[in-house]
């Protein structure tokens, strides 16, 4: 359908799509410059890179943008048979560089350039062109690329240091703040914020993270600029962050971490960058005002749930991609609500969910805490005696508190002696008859495998809890060490030019096997494959112990990067024995796993 250009209005706003894109780039400029400073200039000053390394982040970003542009051009050339001027015109008018540019801003700095290239091709091709190009894609192209890269190459990027640049790997103990939260055993200011400096560093952006996302300050400035110049749909970031903020306040009020925690949740990860630059992508977000608010609220809601109920790290990206699929639905509501107040029900339902889930998630986290610091368990005394540690503990049982003495040698329980109990004689006899306490002793590293006594459930499970909690306390606080570990190579295979070893060493609860891939004298990867560590809880509030596999992300990478000075790498508190064992295994391999 053609409409004559001689139709009015005869005044037009002087804004245009190209001006909007220009303003978007202006807003990104400080963020890109900050990244060049943080991942380039700073590394150069500290001596981690040569002069050209300063420009690495810039090359990274430009490569992303350029790849996207070329991809679109190639697509139009091959499939749309566009040639010459037409081709140039359509590439200019479709802003081909945007997907790759934004993709590079959400990727870890250690992503190999080849993968930035592949990701940009995917972003443009799968995220945009196959839908018909600019204006027709349903999903945010950059995020399509990002999810692709992280899914397919996340592990590879992880082994290269993930989100941490080389300076950060040396100066900061763990991974990004968000990954770190999965690793620590208790959440407090010292464990979450201190490793990265202070809240100020979070605000300014001196923390590990993807290239564009770390500086909250610059993102907020960009948001103000883009809102004042009417470039982005400002309702989306406002309702997105607002909803997430509200839910976090509710959560924090119930759990009681303190004000710092709310700031941490807002300033860490990709929330601000995602909400300002990704969720507002015009093509993939609602056009109606109310639809935008609903979209933002839903995004905040989903991000909150992903962050708190799962360990999945890409909460913001996933939420945005998921909500992209529902944009039409939000616009349906947004376009009808002005003349039909009935549609406000959508807001009501969403608000109830937001508040309800804020409370619910808070409540379940409080319960977890109670499990750990339950008041019905207490350590009465702890004495060291000839290398043994003697605990006297009490645990609420049937009829009254059970008192017991539990003795540890260097790492295992050697005896459990019940001093007091108030169970009826008949039932306690059942426990004694079934040799329950010995079973606990024998299976101390796998207490779950010990069945409670069916007719004396309360007391038998109380005894089990008591033992488990004592072990937890012993392991968590004593800083127990294994002296003179025995380490050996148990298998060796070749795969082309790399050697794959399995090395076994002493660790908590017995042995740990680590698969080590070496090329020449360099360790390429190290993966714990068999271990006896008891991994009771997979959540961040590990009740008992941290599984070695959770050490992978930050710690093992750090070991690999610092493989020439392994002694300088600190072990992970809360997983001292396992982390020490993995380190021992690598030290052993550096000495014994020589080529030939």
């Amino acid at each position: 359908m053609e409409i004559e250009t001689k139709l009015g209005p005869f005044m037009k706003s002087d804004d245009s799509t190209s001006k909007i894109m220009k303003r978007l780039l202006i807003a990104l400029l400080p963020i890109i410059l900050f990244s060049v400073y943080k991942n380039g200039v700073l590394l150069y000053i500290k001596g981690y890179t040569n002069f050209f390394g300063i420009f690495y982040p810039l090359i990274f970003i430009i490569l992303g943008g350029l790849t996207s542009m070329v991809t679109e051009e190639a697509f139009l050339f091959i499939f749309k048979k566009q040639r010459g001027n037409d081709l140039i015109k359509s590439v200019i008018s479709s802003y081909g560089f945007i997907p790759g540019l934004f993709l590079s801003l959400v990727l870890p700095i250690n992503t190999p350039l080849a993968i930035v290239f592949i990701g940009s091709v995917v972003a443009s091709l799968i995220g945009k062109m196959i839908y018909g190009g600019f204006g027709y894609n349903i999903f945010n192209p950059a995020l399509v690329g990002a999810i692709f890269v992280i899914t397919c190459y996340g592990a590879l990027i992880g082994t290269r240091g993930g989100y941490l640049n080389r300076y950060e790997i040396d100066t900061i103990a763990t991974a990004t703040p968000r990954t770190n939260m999965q690793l620590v055993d208790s959440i407090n200011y010292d464990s979450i914020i201190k490793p990265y400096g202070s809240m100020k560093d979070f605000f300014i952006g001196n923390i590990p993270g993807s290239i564009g996302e770390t500086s909250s300050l610059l993102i907020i400035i960009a948001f103000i600029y883009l809102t004042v110049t009417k470039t982005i749909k400002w309702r989306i970031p406002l309702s997105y962050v607002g909803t997430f903020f509200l839910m976090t306040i509710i959560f924090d009020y119930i759990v009681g971490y303190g004000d710092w925690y709310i700031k941490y949740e807002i300033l860490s990860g990709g929330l601000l960058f995602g909400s300002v630059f990704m969720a507002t992508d015009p093509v993939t977000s609602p056009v109606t005002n109310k639809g935008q608010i609903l979209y933002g609220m839903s995004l905040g809601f989903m991000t909150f749930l992903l962050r708190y109920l799962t360990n999945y790290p890409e909460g913001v990206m996933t939420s945005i991609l998921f909500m992209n699929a529902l944009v039409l639905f939000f616009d349906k509501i947004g376009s009808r609500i002005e003349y039909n107040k009935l549609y406000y029900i959508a807001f009501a339902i969403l608000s109830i969910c937001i508040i309800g889930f804020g409370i619910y998630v808070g409540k379940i986290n409080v319960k977890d805490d109670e499990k750990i610091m339950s008041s019905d368990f207490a350590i009465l005394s702890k004495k060291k005696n000839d290398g043994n540690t003697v605990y006297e503990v009490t645990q609420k049982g049937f009829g009254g508190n059970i008192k017991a003495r539990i003795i540890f040698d260097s790492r295992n329980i050697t005896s459990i002696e019940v001093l007091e109990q108030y169970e009826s004689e008949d039932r306690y006899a059942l426990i004694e008859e079934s040799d329950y306490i010995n079973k606990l002793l024998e299976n101390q590293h796998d207490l779950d495998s010990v069945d409670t006594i069916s007719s004396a459930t309360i007391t038998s499970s109380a005894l089990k809890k008591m033992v488990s909690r004592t072990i937890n306390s012993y392991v968590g606080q004593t800083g127990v060490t294994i002296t003179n570990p025995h380490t050996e190579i148990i298998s060796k295979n070749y795969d082309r030019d790399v050697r794959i070893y399995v090395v076994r060493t002493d660790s908590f609860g017995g042995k740990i096997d680590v698969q080590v891939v070496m090329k020449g004298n360099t360790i390429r990867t190290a993966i714990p494959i068999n271990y006896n560590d008891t991994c009771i809880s997979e959540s961040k509030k590990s009740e008992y112990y941290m599984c070695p596999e959770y050490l992978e992300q930050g710690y093992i990478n750090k070991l690999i990067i610092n493989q020439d000075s392994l002694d300088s790498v600190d072990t992970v508190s809360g997983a001292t024995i396992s982390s020490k064992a993995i380190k021992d295994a690598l030290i052993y391999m550096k000495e014994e796993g020589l080529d030939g």
Partner: protein
Amino acid sequence: MRGIKLEGHKDLTKDKKILIVDKPKYVYIPLICNNEEDIDIRIRKGSIVSVGSILAMDKKSNMPIHSSISGRVVDFVDKYCYTGNVVKTIQIENDFKDTKVKVTDLKEIDKYTKKEFLNILKECGIKGMGGANFPTYIKYDTKTRIKHLIINAVECEPYITADYRIVIDHAKEIIETIDAIMTINKIEHAYIAIKKNNKDIIKVLDNYLSIYPRIKIVLVPNIYPMGWERKLVNYILHKDYNMLPIELDAVVNNVSTIYAIYNALKYKMPITSRLVTIVGDGLKKGTNVDVKIGQDISEVLDILGHKKRDLLFISGGPMMGKTIEDENFVVTGNVNAILLIKNDDIDLSSTCLRCGKCTNICPAKLSPIMIKENINNVEELEKLNTLKCIECGLCSYICPAKILLREYVIRAKKNVRGE
């Protein structure tokens, strides 16, 4: 408040001397231009007519169509009217005698009964001069008691200053007429809506308002489309109506219409002339021009000295006006401006980037881009309230991709109505 501050360009004409062009050789009185359907022609070729003679009756509204000059009916010819369509007109040759139809029973303007008042409005063919051309008497012909009289002097379209000049030059007559209408219809409140930045009007009206305490000035924001009836009523009464302002016991009149009512009550004189702002790139000097109804505008343009090269010729303001293909265009009562602008290459529209600006700015709270996307899906168009569009043009104005959204919405409206 949805709307936008536009560059006004009012200084081009607002203080310029009014050009009076009241001696045309011919006038061409349009017969069917807007709502008229069935016309009963009362004259023949050769008939002699006076100023105010009834030329024809519009059977639908039962209102007469008058001659604006005295002279002789020459022919029936086709001319362009403000809609951009070619319409049949009665061509009258001016005898320059300015003889008027004799009128009787003239009273002081506030001494008429309501029945007489309605009759005068009808017989004088008073129709809304703000643009809609809606018969004014119908607004007052209601059983419910009118409580609020709102005088629309907002004139929110850029360039146009015709209403401004009317208020400045005829403030006394306008205030007196408002007072008379209030007395005749027993209306309690009257509000004159003026843009905040129009300090001159406020100064002029202040001289009279101390004598007429029932009439108040309401200052409205300087945004487009503040003069839209629905928006204005909401701004003043803080309520919304469904179809017509009378649901809220309110009547809204354009200020030029009030001046026409003055002439009707005072002299029983129909609308024979009006002020038209003529301005634009192609003119040496733009100004307000007092033209006869039915006057061919090309004569006026010759007087104003316009260069005929590459100009778009627009009836109305830059936002809601329409291009007229030919300069042989005749003035009707609701034409408040003629705009001549350079016929530049207007930017070609590009793909919608779904920025949502059209939805955000729409004063009727519609989603123009969604209407465009569903243009052939009548069921969906109805759910999108397409018919609520007032064609203000802000969606087309704001679109960064330069998509002519209003034209799509107009077409969608036709689709909904099954036209």
